[in-house]
């Protein structure tokens, strides 16, 4: 018993010591907090917004210091550079806060403008890819289409395209508001308001003469021009230049802005989430649908109306290869496009500061990964099917991966990006074969497959792979929370994407077809057979692209003989040379 008592006493002491050990730090912390409380209470109140700040603590460099130069960079960009509203007061808290706000918007302006400049440079990539895939006798004509589509599109977009697209999109928070763009024309149908087109910003005049709107215009304009230039590839080597001009102006003024309004300008597709509970509405981060699929389905409409090049198909319907004239500029163009895509996708945050815009790094990595796996997919497909790692189709695989990741780039992780790109790489090969061999539609550069098919795949992939990790200011298209696809728990997002796909195929194709059919009736879309056989450089443009070359006239008649066909088309070439 005595031993037990002693044991109990020891245990009691141990417990007491442990309690003390545990309690002491807590007591010390509480004492510390208590002792700090009066100190905190004793802190001086925050200065009034217009009260001058004591800038001496910032240790600004003196005038004497500054005249010595600043090789280390430590004296440049200090409190001396804060803009003051009243020189008598010096720097106030209000000045400082305003400077912080303007710095954020300035960062976003510069980011959006520079990425817009990158997208503009993609025009050069498209131009040389398409020209390289065409025959030398049409090089001037193809280059001039790609060159002037920029001007035609820009002009049409300035006149009315931008207003129709973005006239009701405000507010654009990352750019400081763009508040004058606040008028969307809606119609009431089936008990809901459907945004159809914007009505502010024609000629960028009136209240839309605004710094933020100028930035937004530049960025949206280069996107629109990308869509327009896709069509020139599908109709290359036989498109009458005047018809091309009229068609491009129509697309830049009407077709593209309408769909872009529905997706990005506050139109009905973007409101499918708010109005019908379909996820976050149609989500297209950088334009797989808005830019590439619009260009791709319009390219299909044009290629159907204008018909195949003379000699493309034999009398029995089998296709002939019509190899491009310069694979070097084709692949160089692909690299330029891949470079420009870093403007296309990361730039679509419209800023680098605030509202989740720091995701630009993730978006850039997703972009390069999908391009990489896209080229893998196409290369492996061609190698396995035809025994050679075909160059032009590999280039197309790169572009297909980039096109497909454009819509989901802001919503998915790297693994999904790799999968999306790989699928796109294989899909572009299958699509090129289907368009040529089953549909018997002649697409000299593969624009329908690269931009149309994979643009649609990109739109669908948002509804499958969006992982719910992105958070651009807490909501997307007016619906709170991040975008999730089917594989991450939101099947309704996939429905919104499918309705977007249906709109692209049904409405955009239909409108493009109808408009170009009318243009065909009025001015004629196709050059004469004589001009086509001679090459369009002299008949349409008045000058050869390569005047010192001796061009072999193409006298291949309609329904070229089967023996000639076999000579020309080894299996890899039959598909590979018809791409971009």
């Amino acid at each position, binding site marked *: 018993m005595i031993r037990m008592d002693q044991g109990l006493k020891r245990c009691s002491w141990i417990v007491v010591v442990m309690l003390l050990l545990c309690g002491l730090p807590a007591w010390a912390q509480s004492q510390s907090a208590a002792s700090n409380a009066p100190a905190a209470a004793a802190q001086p109140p925050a200065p009034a917004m217009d009260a001058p700040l004591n800038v001496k603590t910032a240790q600004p460099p003196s005038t004497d210091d500054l005249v010595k130069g600043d090789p280390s960079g430590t004296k440049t960009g200090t409190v001396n550079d804060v803009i003051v509203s009243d020189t008598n007061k010096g720097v106030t808290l209000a000045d400082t806060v305003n400077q912080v706000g303007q710095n954020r918007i300035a960062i976003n302006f510069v980011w959006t403008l520079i990425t817009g400049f990158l997208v503009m440079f993609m025009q050069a990539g498209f131009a040389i890819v398409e020209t390289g895939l065409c025959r030398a006798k049409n090089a001037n004509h193809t280059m001039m289409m790609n060159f002037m589509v920029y001007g035609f599109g820009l002009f049409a977009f300035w006149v009315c395209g931008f207003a129709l697209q973005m006239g009701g999109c405000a507010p654009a928070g990352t750019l400081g508001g763009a508040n004058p763009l606040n008028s969307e024309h809606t119609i009431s149908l089936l008990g809901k308001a459907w945004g159809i087109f914007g009505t502010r910003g024609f000629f960028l005049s009136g209240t839309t003469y605004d710094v933020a709107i100028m930035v937004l215009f530049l960025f949206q304009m280069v996107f629109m021009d990308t869509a327009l230039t896709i069509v020139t590839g599908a109709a290359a080597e036989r498109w009458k230049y005047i018809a091309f001009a009229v068609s491009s102006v129509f697309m830049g003024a009407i077709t593209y802005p309408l769909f872009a309004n529905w997706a990005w300008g506050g139109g009905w597709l973007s409101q499918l989430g708010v109005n019908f509970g379909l996820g976050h509405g149609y989500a297209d981060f950088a334009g797989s649908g808005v830019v590439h699929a619009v260009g791709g389905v319009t390219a299909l409409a044009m290629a159907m109306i204008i018909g195949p090049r003379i000699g493309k198909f034999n*009398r029995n319907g089998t296709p002939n290869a019509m190899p491009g004239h310069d694979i070097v500029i084709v692949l160089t163009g692909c690299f330029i496009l891949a470079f420009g895509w870093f403007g296309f996708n990361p730039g679509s945050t419209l800023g680098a500061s605030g509202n989740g815009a720091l995701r630009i790094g993730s978006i850039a990595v997703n972009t390069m990964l999908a391009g990489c796996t896209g080229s893998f997919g196409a290369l492996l497909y061609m190698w396995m099917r035809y025994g050679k790692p075909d160059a032009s189709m590999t280039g197309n695989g790169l572009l297909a991966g980039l096109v497909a990741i454009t819509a989901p780039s802001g919503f998915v992780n790297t693994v999904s990006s790799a999968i999306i790109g790989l699928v796109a790489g294989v899909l572009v090969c299958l699509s090129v074969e289907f368009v040529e061999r089953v549909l*018997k*539609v002649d697409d000299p550069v593969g624009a329908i497959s690269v931009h149309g098919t994979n643009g649609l795949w990109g739109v669908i992939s948002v509804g499958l792979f969006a992982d719910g990790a992105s958070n651009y200011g807490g909501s997307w298209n007016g619906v709170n929370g991040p975008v999730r696809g089917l594989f991450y728990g939101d099947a309704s997002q996939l429905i919104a994407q499918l309705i977007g796909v249906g709109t692209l*195929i049904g409405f955009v194709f239909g409108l493009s077809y109808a408009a170009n059919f009318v243009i065909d009736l009025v001015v004629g879309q196709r050059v004469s057979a004589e001009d086509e056989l001679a090459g369009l450089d002299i008949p349409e443009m008045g000058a050869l692209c390569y005047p010192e070359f001796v061009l072999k006239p193409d006298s291949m008649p309609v329904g070229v003989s089967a023996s000639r066909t076999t000579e020309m088309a080894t299996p890899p070439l039959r598909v590979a040379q018809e791409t971009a």
Partner: protein
Amino acid sequence: MKLIGLLMAFAGWLIPVVALVLTQSTAARMIVSLLGIAISLVGILVVMNKAHLKNAIWKP
């Protein structure tokens, strides 16, 4: 035939849009959306394309 194909393309777009009001079932909306896309594709790739190929430049 070109006009019929064009009308099918438009119809394939409108059907799922109208169906949004008629049902709130996710499965039904999904099916109707896919059906609409199929109708549009048939209209374009089969009906319209066949009409264009009828007088194709390479045909005898």
